[in-house]
């Protein structure tokens, strides 16, 4: 229960609320106390001024009379008044029966014209006593004390009200907060259910829940997106599996057929040689296919971290051009190699980049009829290196410009040409692993232009 996010959030907010309430309480009670004390002090000071004026007008005897009057009128258990003479002797006072503990004389000894306050706490009094002493001229001093019952009652009342309010707000806040938090996280619950469903392999439907919070909505969006991605990956996997099955089955069927016909009846020795040679060729192409698949998978998964070495693409293009020159010549295809600047440095794996360029050129020559032209061009922009391979071959319909990079994808017309349909997806995987892009522009019957764009090595 306390492991849930809603409970944790509620607890956290409750703690935070308590802390803030404590601070508010301290500040309010302190200022209240100061205010109440100053009210008591004001009362005492006003009383003292009254007595001072009595002394000034009527003299000592009237003052003493006044004290006696006070003694009768006021509640002597709550207030006491004393008059001292110059020798600190008590010359007049209210009834002091209820005041067994009192400060002696008129402290401090030095003559000051201003009065002073002191607070006396003793076990015999129910409340603290506020005492004000005021010198009256040079000969006398007036002292008045008062139990601060009212002030303490107010403070206690304040504390009680505060405590009740505090507990009420806390309980209410925790309950409401908990339900609000749980409500806000309802979207998370929906997403969790969807994730459970997906992990059980159910890819139908998506999360349609709409939350008020943008965070939850974007989470829902991500989950839906993920589900779609998984779906398309599964679809692709199925296609690949089907294609693999097909592409593996054909050479195996050919080998099996050849071997079978060789076994039925006597053959010339030359025929057996022919059979063995054909089997070796088929096997080599199968191994090549398996290796290419593994390499694509590894490159895609980032398992084959490309060695980060400076590779000169100008050199590679030149080499590959030279390598294919005789093949192009044999086929009657005009091969042109142009390199606008050298070196063209990129960071990466030489042998795999070599393979990319060679595969593209290989394809271009393969799909270009006799008398056609293939041009490979390498050049640099400020941040990129571009290699284009243009041919005057059969071309690729626009709707297939993207799909040709899929594994085992082959154009219908090219099914009869040898090859496994992995070349372009390997090219794409390697180029992507090098942080680059590969794309095609093509028109059916006119030819195709493949472009590789790779980030230039910064010097």
């Amino acid at each position, binding site marked *: 229960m306390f492991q849930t996010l809603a409970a944790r959030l509620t607890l956290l907010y409750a703690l935070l609320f308590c802390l803030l309430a404590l601070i508010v309480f301290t500040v309010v009670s302190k200022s209240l106390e100061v205010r109440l004390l100053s009210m008591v002090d004001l009362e005492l000071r006003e009383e003292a001024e009254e007595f001072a004026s009595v002394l000034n007008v009527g003299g000592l005897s009237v003052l003493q009379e006044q004290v006696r009057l006070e003694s009768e009128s006021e509640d002597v258990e709550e207030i006491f008044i004393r008059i001292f003479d110059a020798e600190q002797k008590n010359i007049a006072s209210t009834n002091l029966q209820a005041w067994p503990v009192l400060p002696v004389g008129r402290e401090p000894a030095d003559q000051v014209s201003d009065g002073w306050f002191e607070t006396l706490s003793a076990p015999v009094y129910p409340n603290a006593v506020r005492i004000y002493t005021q010198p009256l001229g040079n000969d006398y001093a007036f002292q008045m004390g008062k139990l601060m019952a009212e002030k303490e009652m107010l403070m206690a009342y304040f504390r009680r009200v505060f405590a009740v309010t505090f507990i009420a707000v806390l309980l209410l806040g925790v309950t409401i907060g908990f339900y609000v938090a749980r409500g806000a996280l309802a979207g998370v619950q929906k997403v969790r259910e969807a994730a459970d469903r997906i992990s059980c392999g159910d890819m139908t439907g998506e999360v349609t829940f709409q939350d008020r919070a943008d965070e939850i909505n974007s989470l829902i969006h991500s989950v839906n997106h993920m589900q779609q991605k998984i779906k398309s990956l599964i679809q692709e996997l199925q296609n690949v599996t089907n294609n693999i099955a097909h592409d593996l089955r054909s050479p195996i069927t050919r080998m099996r057929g050849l071997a079978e016909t060789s076994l039925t009846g006597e053959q010339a020795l030359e025929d057996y*040689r*022919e059979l*063995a*040679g*054909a*089997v*070796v*060729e088929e*096997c*080599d192409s199968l*191994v*090549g296919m398996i*290796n290419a698949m*593994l390499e694509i998978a*590894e490159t895609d998964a980032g398992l*084959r971290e490309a060695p980060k070495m400076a590779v000169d693409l100008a050199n590679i293009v030149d*080499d590959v051009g*030279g*390598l*294919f020159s*005789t*093949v192009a*010549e*044999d086929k009657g295809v005009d091969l042109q190699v142009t390199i606008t600047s050298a070196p063209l440095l990129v960071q990466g794996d030489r*042998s795999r980049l*070599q*393979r990319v360029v*060679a*595969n593209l050129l*290989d394809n271009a*020559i*393969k799909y270009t009829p006799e008398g056609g032209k293939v041009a490979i061009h390498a050049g640099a922009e400020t941040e990129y290196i571009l290699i284009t391979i243009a041919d005057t071959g059969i071309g690729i319909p626009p709707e297939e410009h993207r799909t040709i990079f899929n594994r085992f994808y082959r154009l219908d017309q090219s099914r009869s040409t*040898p*090859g496994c349909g992995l*070349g372009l997806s390997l090219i794409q995987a390697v180029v992507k692993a090098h942080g680059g892009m590969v794309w095609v522009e093509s028109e059916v019957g006119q030819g195709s232009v493949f472009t590789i764009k790779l980030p230039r090595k910064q010097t």
Partner: protein
Amino acid sequence: MRVLLIEDDDRTAGFVTKGYNQAGYAVDRAANGVDGLFMATHTRYDIAVIDIMLPRLDGLAVIEKLREQNLSLPIIIVSAKKSIDDRILGLHSGSDDYIVKPFAFSELLARTQALLRRVNQIAEPMTLQVDDLSMDFGRRKVVRAGKEINLQQREFSLLEYLMRNQGRVVSKTMIMEHVWDYNFDPESNVVESRICRLREKIYLPQASKLIHTVRGVGYVLEKR
């Protein structure tokens, strides 16, 4: 030359043994790591070919134990594992070369011979002669029947590779690797067309054509 072959698969062992025998090597075979280790320590072999996945004691352990006993016998690892890490692990264990299954026997043979030459410090000859064709590698001269033939640089390298492997079949992959420094074989028959050019250049009427195609396997230079 005696070869120790430690390989658990009977058929693989069969064709490797047959191939070595045809090339004039004697082969002893062990079907598991323990037997292989015993044979390697008790008999003198010129070279060992060891599979990694072996029953009882795996190939890497066999090699480590051999090296612990200070046996400097040259070793080629044969393994179905292709990744670079596995290769490095294999070479670190003390082997001298590494070949990945499925392999072409011609490649295993070429590697065996190269390794033996290296270990026995046999210098590559500077001139070679097959029938009436002679090559001088230092002066980069090719002469057939007394007539000098002009070859481009790659053609010279190709002919040199075939000459140095005379009588042995070299695969297209091996040619791509050694002559063009490519570790793959393009779908178009690049090697075939180069070989054709080379044949034309060294062509002599009424003489052996010297460079022969072995269907499915590769090419061999020899007088037939």
